[in-house]
């Protein structure tokens, strides 16, 4: 990649472990999607998306744990928690909307990608603080 892991951690404000969870969930999800699209798996779309939702749940839980452990420095801990939760909420909303679109098809792609647009803008502003 263009960026090193240290710079990605600084840029996305996710820890290396959170990135590890995201990679793992995307790997499992892509295998399930391939099986579903090729007709080898008859599970519903929410089931296919389960690894991604579990990953978001674990990430939110980890952020809360880090908040509790940094509680003595309340200001720093609160800022970190808010940053993490905003990103997790946007990613989770995107996944929910995508799942809804694939399951029922009643949403436009622009609507589904709206949380991602917000996330890209947040990353764009955050990238100014990477050094």
């Amino acid at each position, binding site marked *: 990649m*263009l960026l090193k892991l240290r710079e990605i951690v600084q840029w996305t404000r996710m820890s290396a472990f959170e990135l*590890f969870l995201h*990679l793992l969930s995307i790997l499992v999800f*892509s295998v399930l999607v391939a099986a579903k699209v090729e007709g080898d798996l008859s599970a519903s779309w929410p089931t296919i998306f389960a690894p991604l939702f579990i990953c978001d749940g674990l990430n939110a839980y980890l952020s809360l744990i880090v908040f509790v452990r940094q509680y003595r420095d309340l200001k720093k801990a609160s800022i970190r928690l808010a940053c993490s939760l905003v990103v997790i909420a946007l990613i989770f909303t995107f996944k929910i909307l995508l799942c809804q679109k694939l399951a029922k098809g009643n949403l*436009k792609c622009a609507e589904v990608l709206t949380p991602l647009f917000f996330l890209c803008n947040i990353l764009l502003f955050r990238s100014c603080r990477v050094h």
Partner: protein
Amino acid sequence: MAAVQKAIFSSGILLITAILFALRVDNTVDWNWFLIFIPLWLFDAVMITYLIVNIIIHFRTAFCGNVDRNDMTKNRKYGLLVFCVLKITFQILLCLRLEDFYISLYYVLIPLWIILVAGLIDNFFVLKASGAYR
């Protein structure tokens, strides 16, 4: 390239790709999928040029401990170059699949799976070296 420039470039590319993708899927435009992926091709071109220049610099300069100023060894740069090739292969296969060429999705996703597994292994070693939670 400084880290801030790389980060701004990456997020800009991501944003433009997402916008073009949304336009194409909603049938607002009916461009070829290879055109929709232009920002990603641009990103790949920049990444490959950056890596090749870095590899050439590595050959021409005697770095202490074979590690350059970005803490990267020569083998890691070769690894990143392979990563780029796999990423481009995945994008080409995905474009072909979206353009109604019948390629099994398993074959399309094989380069992505290799990238993800390599990323997971790399990340695992970083986590192992730096403690239980980082």
